[in-house]
């Protein structure tokens, strides 16, 4: 079917999905025991009934849940996503502040994982019984099985403490003087350890996936035909084999990108990297309704967009998917 129709159809489905997400999350967060007033009272080490009542009124929590939902929808329609109960800042500001950090972490990690994964997987597939392939297999099982926080803490201890090459917390050296180049380098310096930690989990998957996918493709008929034609092995493998074997890796990476964007909580916590994952997790613990709902809303939108993009990229990579035959 035409590209245009596809995008339109996907967008409409997407919007319906987003509405369902908001409704579901709104209900869930209000069912959870404990409300923001209690959470604030907890932070304060106590509060009188009057103070808690005044907090509830200030946040509109004294109204019924359906009423609150309608008020929320009304505000959203006007573009007002609300103010965080905890930070007392507009939630859009808080989210926008964290987007560069989150994006840089997830994109860097995934790119590292994809590129390295493809390379390792391809090399492994060249000699599937060999020692390199064995290493890739074992390594990916280890990388996949090892808990992320453990990997993070190990890297932290190794490279931020025993051999202090990297900072180990935060996204920048506070109050660093220097122009944008120095700031950027400082940021990258802080990015290395968390990105590597996150990359390891995905690298494990992608290298194995690529290896299996290459073996599959290289054993298929058309490759046999190409070899019969007399093409050099290198051309067969790199030009024809990889292009086809990449598809599963891209699919998975696309799905996982949206996961990583909002879900790298553990890495963010270990390295004190203030990203969306931590923000979302903490907003649940703090019952920060407006912030949580806004994060879920944006995450839903991102998932939908990424899925559309993944679909489109198929069409670029795989000429078989074009018309709706």
């Amino acid at each position: 079917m035409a590209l245009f129709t596809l995008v339109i159809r996907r967008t409409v489905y997407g919007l319906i999905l987003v509405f369902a997400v908001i409704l579901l999350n709104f209900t869930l967060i209000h069912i959870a025991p404990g409300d923001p007033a209690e959470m604030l009272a907890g932070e304060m080490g106590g509060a009188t009934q009057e103070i808690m009542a005044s907090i509830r009124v200030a946040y509109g929590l004294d109204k019924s849940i359906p009423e609150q939902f309608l008020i929320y929808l009304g505000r959203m329609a006007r573009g007002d996503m609300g103010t965080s109960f905890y930070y007392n800042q507009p939630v859009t500001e808080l989210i926008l502040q964290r987007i560069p950090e989150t994006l840089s972490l997830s994109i860097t990690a995934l790119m590292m994982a994809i590129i390295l994964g493809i390379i390792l997987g391809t090399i492994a597939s060249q000699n599937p019984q060999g020692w390199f392939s064995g290493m890739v297999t074992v390594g990916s099982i280890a990388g996949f099985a090892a808990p992320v926080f453990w990997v993070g803490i190990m890297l932290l201890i190794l490279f931020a403490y025993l051999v202090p090459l990297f900072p180990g917390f935060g996204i920048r050296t506070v109050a660093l003087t220097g122009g944008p180049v120095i700031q950027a380098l400082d940021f990258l310096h802080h990015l290395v350890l968390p990105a590597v930690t996150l990359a390891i989990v995905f690298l494990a998957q992608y290298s194995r996936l690529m290896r299996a996918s290459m073996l599959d493709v290289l054993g298929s008929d058309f490759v046999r035909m190409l070899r019969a034609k007399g093409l050099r092995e290198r051309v067969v493998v790199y030009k024809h084999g990889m292009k086809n074997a990449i598809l599963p890796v891209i699919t998975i990476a696309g799905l996982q990108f949206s996961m990583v964007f909002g879900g790298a909580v553990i890495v963010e916590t270990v390295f004190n990297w203030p990203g969306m994952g931590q923000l979302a997790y903490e907003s649940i613990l703090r019952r920060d309704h407006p912030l949580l709902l806004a994060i879920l809303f944006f995450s839903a939108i991102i998932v939908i967009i990424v899925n559309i993009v993944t679909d489109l990229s198929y069409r670029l990579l795989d000429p078989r998917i074009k018309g709706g035959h």
Partner: protein
Amino acid sequence: MLKMIKFSLVLAVGLLFLVAMPFGSFADTPQKGGTLNLVHSQFVSLNSAIQSGVATMIPGAQLFAGLVRLDEKFQAVPYLARSWETSGDGLTWTFHLANNATFHDGKPITSEDVAFSLETVKKNHPFGVAMFGNVDRVETPDPHTAVFKLSKPTPSLLPSLSPVLMSIIPKHVYSSPEPIRTHPANIKTVGSGPFKFADYKPGEFLILDRYDKFFIPGRPYLDRLIFHIMKDPTSIAISLERQKTQYSAYTSISLRDIDRLEKLDYLKVTRKGYEAIGPLSWLAFNVRNKPLDDVRVRQAISYSIDRKFINQKLLIGRSVQATGPLHHGSHFYSGDVEKYDLNIDKANKLLDQAGYPRKDKGIRFSLMMDYEPTSPEIQKNIAEYIREALQSVGIDVKLRTSPDFPTWMRRISNWDFDLTIDTVFNYPDPVIGVHRTYICSNIKKGVMWSNTQGYCNPKVDEILEKASVEKDFTKRKALYVEFQKIVTQELPVAWTFEVPYHTIYHKDLGNPPLTVWGAMAPFDEVYWVKEPK
């Protein structure tokens, strides 16, 4: 010859200086300058006038001044108020303010601001009524005199006027129609203290800079305070070891890491500085639920808990046993109470006497125990140990985990519990943080850290009421001694230990804040003997 003598004399004096320098006996004048990097946790707001809690109070003490400050002995010492007198009946307190004090925007601090702050705190602070319920009004006869008119004598008044409990906030900023709880000045503060707000990135850091026109000339010494917002215990420990951060109070790292850090020669570890907060941990009983309504059952449970084991093994010797409602650092503390040293025989006897014999499998009855899901070292580990301890006297305990803090809070404040581990702060006067747990009038459903146990003894209420207005220290102490005797017999809670908060700081920090308020006191006297690079 003379030249030689002169030369060797100069050499000798020079060597003397060189030797004496590291001991600081000569160079003890604090030098100005330098940045202190502190470990901190995320806060909701910086306005300590309406928000309490560690995360707000530490920066709050830097941003806001108070009428008085407390020294290492709980004595009130002049701060914004340079002197004060009180009338014979104790109902009128006259404070004379420094006449050169300004807010961070340059406007003068006057008695109007003191009156405004008092009203704000009384209305909005969680302990506002407990601290200032007896203050009818604050009169302002002139810009530098504030007169407190009390309806009853209030011996807890001076400690309540510490910077973190009665922060002096600017009337001209907070008089705007914006409701105070969501006021932007709660972050971009206009304060009265030695440091002013410079920058803040949520989740990352807070920067405070010296306020050059602070009313104590020459202070503060430090240029800048950077609060690094950190949660992960490993990276906190590493940052202290690598000297990237140089001060951490209420440190949320494991006690074993504290052991390790203490061994480093450039760090110092202390338990001082928590006396004004007075943090206690206890096992709370819901005395409404059978069989906890029987005091013998509660006492039996207390006798089954081996507090020595908890302190020496679970908390690796880093805490002190809590014996009653008061922290041992309090002037009203009395150790002349039943301490419930481990006595399994007595526990079993009491349970039998109470009419709960062992039945099949040796179980007498079953109870549910809750605990806060944060800080496992002082919550979950203790709960699991106590479960085992109670098993040995025939009480079957089921642990109920709460997925997060608000869930736990919801359960306890709504009396949906049998037993729970809890941590409660005394604060510098019992009126503020102690009474609330034991008085009948504070049994309020839905309010956390009220009298959630449901304990009610009108005699106790009477004693505490008298103590809250008793001006004479000896008489007041006698009342609190009686109070401690009664509640340690009637046991609405079984006190276990004083929470082992530690402060870790760099050895080259001069005048580290070690009054009873610890980190929650102004850092105006803190300086770098030698700033680490």
